[in-house]
């Protein structure tokens, strides 16, 4: 696997937009270079009713950054007495990551969210020092991100309903990780709609 720090643990995540729904999916592998140690390491964390973030990269930083972000969002909710919005969440994440600009965390992040009143969807893609993209239709991070991007562009259609969105996201993820030896071993897909969040666990190739 070489000495590339971002592929030391492996892992991948994908986010896609639909009509008043967003999906975010990740694989479940936890490994150390070649060796797979566990297949229950999900990389998606919830920060509010309709705000989710996926972190991919070095596993220790995945855990640390998700916990540090949770600390900041908890304080925000206590002070402001209201739940987070996706735009606020990605701004907090940018800030957290840029604080370590010259000794960065080795995680790339995806922020997804939905406004339950207006149905507006948000998908943002962040690098490891806090550069955030615009609100995009499709974003992927991780060791298999290039392969999943290709499939995602193929399966994406504008204004998909939640079932079509789930199918497109799962197929893009499951088939993309087949070309990467550092990710896979199962997947988890969250489909976020105005009134509910559906979590589905997928069993893919266990290789």
């Amino acid at each position: 696997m070489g000495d590339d720090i971002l592929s030391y643990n492996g892992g991948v995540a994908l986010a896609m937009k639909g009509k008043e729904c967003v999906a975010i999916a990740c694989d479940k592998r936890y490994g150390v270079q070649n060796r797979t140690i566990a297949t229950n390491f999900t990389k998606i964390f919830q920060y509010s009713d309709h705000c989710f973030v996926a972190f991919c990269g070095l596993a220790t930083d995945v855990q640390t950054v998700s916990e540090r972000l949770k600390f900041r969002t908890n304080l925000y909710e206590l002070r402001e007495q209201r739940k987070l919005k996706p735009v606020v969440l990605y701004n907090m994440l940018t800030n957290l990551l840029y604080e370590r600009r010259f000794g960065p965390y080795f995680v790339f992040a995806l922020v997804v969210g939905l406004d339950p009143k207006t149905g507006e969807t948000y998908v943002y893609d962040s690098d490891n020092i806090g550069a955030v993209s615009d609100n995009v239709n499709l974003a992927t991070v991780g060791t298999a991100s290039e392969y999943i991007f290709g499939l995602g562009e193929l399966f994406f259609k504008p204004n998909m309903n939640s079932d079509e969105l789930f199918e497109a996201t799962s197929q893009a993820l499951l088939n993309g990780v087949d070309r990467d030896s550092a990710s896979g071993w199962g997947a988890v897909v969250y489909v976020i709609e105005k009134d509910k969040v559906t979590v589905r666990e997928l069993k893919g190739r266990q290789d």
Partner: protein
Amino acid sequence: MDVLNPMTYDAEEDQLRDRTKYSQMDKHIIPVEFQQQPVSTGTTIVAVEYDGGVIIGADTRTSAGTFVMNRFTDKLTPLTDQIFCLRSGSAADTQAIAQVVTYQLDFLSAEMNEPPLVRIAANCVRRMIYQYRDDFLAGMIVAGWDKKLGGQVYSCPLGGLLVRQPVTLGGSGSTYIWGYLDNNYRPNMTKDECYDFVLKGITLAITRDGSSGGCARIAIINKDGVERIDVLGNDLPKVFDL
């Protein structure tokens, strides 16, 4: 050429070596995504003798770093009609070795007017690996059937060793199944027991090793010839779900 020994030092060769060395700066200038990792059959290969022949098996993944170049590789390469080699290590090196040895054995069988012995095939492979031991990264298993000694498995690992073993493993995935072998292999197993052993071993290694994956390719070599079986992903035996 030993630089410190004045009797063997050749100034021209030394200069040439310097000029043809890759620039160390390339490592810093070229971004890591574009630095090509060598293609390797980071792999799991298994071979076992039974009474009457051998059963050999391998996974089907070829990777370059983390990228899976081929999901359905054939690592069971025939050297002659009834002698196969299992390749692990650098894909280029092992393919080159297999090609050269196939030619050598073809020539030899024309000279001797009979199929070559498995030991001879293994020795040809071993000779190449030993001769280029500082350059090659090739761990190979040579297995087959011949009239004289029946089914035989020979292991030719990295440095250029040759040893006959009743059962042997190779490749990066083998580290995960040595324990399985020690626990489950018994001498004088029947053909079906050996087949199950090989298939289960490959499946276990595929599950744990990142460089092994895909399906399992198995070949049964005996006096009647070679029977090839491809076990696709869904048909692999069920193992503990991690």
